[in-house]
């Protein structure tokens, strides 16, 4: 008779410290109810444009099924380099400064692991995407939360950043346009952050996956600011702009030393991003601009619809200028984010995500995604109105 074991004793202490995702619980709750209208989805409702899918099908027909360069296909890196130089005026060398990753999620993990020693602090403005804090914890780093505020349109202010910096600070992790708030930061806002970053000699990890989804004026890329290219690890991908979430295709741009460090991890963990997805990404960059812009205009119209609808109901929200989320405050209803979201789901079958899932800074808010059809947004708004009026 051999000794029995308790598998949970084998889980690493680092992982045990990471709390389970709060979003998981909402998924389970919502899955039990039929005919829900979901404003809880963080991905486009469009199917990937046909020309991109067709290019992938053709590539499979041609038997393009092998590994690619660890860095990603050179043709893709060249297209990416061209895109960044024409869109933001920043030139990245396709051989040494670009790494194709499996989603921004992988890029984020690589970026943090590449620069973080145990005990190093990474500053995370909140509310933020759910993976940021765990990604820092996985690397043994210490996440330092900064609360951004609705009165500042959820922008990170230079004062808030400076107050969080200590001698252990390694980097700040920025995400504008922002999930979950839809906040954007213009060039002048970012310049003020760049001053602090340079003064305190820290790096910036800039997740710009929503760069194409900005309304009323274009996106400012952090590395395009004077002197910031060498301090920026830029992360971006194809999921949001080109409705390619399931392809898991993204990229990192950074100074050669940083890309080399990220590449060390990538080559031994992921090896390379899927070849079919890379072919789709090349097609997206070459021929996808027109359809992408048409999707963005569609989001823009829904944005107007949902912002005015929520404000009319009495759930105050500032006008988000990017991504596809609105972040209304529910504090004047007297309910917590969680109570509001859960009762709304049970009583009116509308899925929203309580803001506190994106950090304590999101307490009192809801994330509503407008990446869903206009009819569904209108129906959701009328159900939310009924719910609020009954409170």
């Amino acid at each position, binding site marked *: 008779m051999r000794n029995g074991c308790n598998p949970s004793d084998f889980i690493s202490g680092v992982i045990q410290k990471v709390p389970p995702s709060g979003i998981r619980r909402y998924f389970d709750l919502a899955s039990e109810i039929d005919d829900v209208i979901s404003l*809880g989805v*963080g991905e486009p409702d469009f199917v990937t444009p046909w020309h991109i899918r067709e290019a992938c099908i053709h590539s499979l027909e041609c038997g393009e099924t092998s590994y690619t360069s660890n860095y990603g296909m050179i043709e893709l890196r060249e297209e990416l380099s061209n895109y960044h130089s024409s869109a933001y005026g920043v030139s990245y060398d396709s051989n040494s400064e670009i790494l194709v990753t499996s989603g921004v999620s992988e890029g984020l993990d690589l970026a943090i692991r590449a620069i973080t020693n145990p005990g190093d602090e990474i500053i995370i403005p909140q509310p933020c995407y759910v*993976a940021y804090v765990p990604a820092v914890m996985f690397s043994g780093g210490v996440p330092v939360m900064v609360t951004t505020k609705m009165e500042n349109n959820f922008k990170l202010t230079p004062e808030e950043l400076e107050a969080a910096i200590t001698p252990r600070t390694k980097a700040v992790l920025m995400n504008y346009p922002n999930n979950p708030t839809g906040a954007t930061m213009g060039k002048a806002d970012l310049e003020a952050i760049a001053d602090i970053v340079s003064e305190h000699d820290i790096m910036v990890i800039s997740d710009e996956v929503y760069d194409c989804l900005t309304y009323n004026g274009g996106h400012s890329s952090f590395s395009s600011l004077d002197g910031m290219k060498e301090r920026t690890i830029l992360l971006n991908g194809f999921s949001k702009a080109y409705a390619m979430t399931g392809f898991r295709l993204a990229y990192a741009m950074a100074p050669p030393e940083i890309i080399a460090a990220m590449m060390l991890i990538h080559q031994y963990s992921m090896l390379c991003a899927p070849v079919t997805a890379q072919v789709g990404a090349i097609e997206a960059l070459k021929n996808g601009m027109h359809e992408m812009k*048409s999707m963005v205009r569609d989001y*823009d119209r829904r944005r*107007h619809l949902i912002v005015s609808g929520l404000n009319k109901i009495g759930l105050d929200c500032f006008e988000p200028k990017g991504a596809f989320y609105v972040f209304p405050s529910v504090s004047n209803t007297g309910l917590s984010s969680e109570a509001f979201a859960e009762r709304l789901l049970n009583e009116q079958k509308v899925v929203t995500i309580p803001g506190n899932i994106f950090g304590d800074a999101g307490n009192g808010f809801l994330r509503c995604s407008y990446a869903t059809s*206009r009819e569904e947004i209108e129906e959701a708004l009328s159900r939310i109105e009924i719910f609020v009026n009954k409170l």
Partner: protein
Amino acid sequence: MGLLGMDEGTRHILECLEEDARLSHEKIATLTGLSVDEVNKRIKEMEDSGVIRRYKTIVDWDLAGDENVYAIIELKVTLERNLGYQNLVNRLSKFPEVRSARLLSGQYDLSLTVCGKSMKEVAFFVAEKISTLEQVQHTATHFVLKTYKEDGIFLYEQEHTGRLVVTP
């Protein structure tokens, strides 16, 4: 108006109407962030200038049980001195049977879509009214067997893949 370029607001209005011509001006104002007055003004201007020709419905006549027959007629023509295509197109287009008329590049000059009650009626129409015109050298009649997509709209059910109800 087209010559002066088009701003984002106007493009939004046109895209809204192209997708659903029955949208109220109030709804369009909400969707575009423009005032209702501004939307009224811009739509009126575009109606007056002909940018917006008319509002119509895309009908799946087959599904409605209509027995009409459609054909695409290609025409090879000779032009009269001093008279361009316009004169001929004008004569052709006045027939109510002619639903669309286009000038094409390539082997044929003009393409018409013709509608009739039967194949026989369409064939006779082409033989009697079109082929007999002096400028028409040659015609080729292609009967439409089934329409799959009309003006960007699919006339059959599209495959539908669901998303998860909650994602981060």
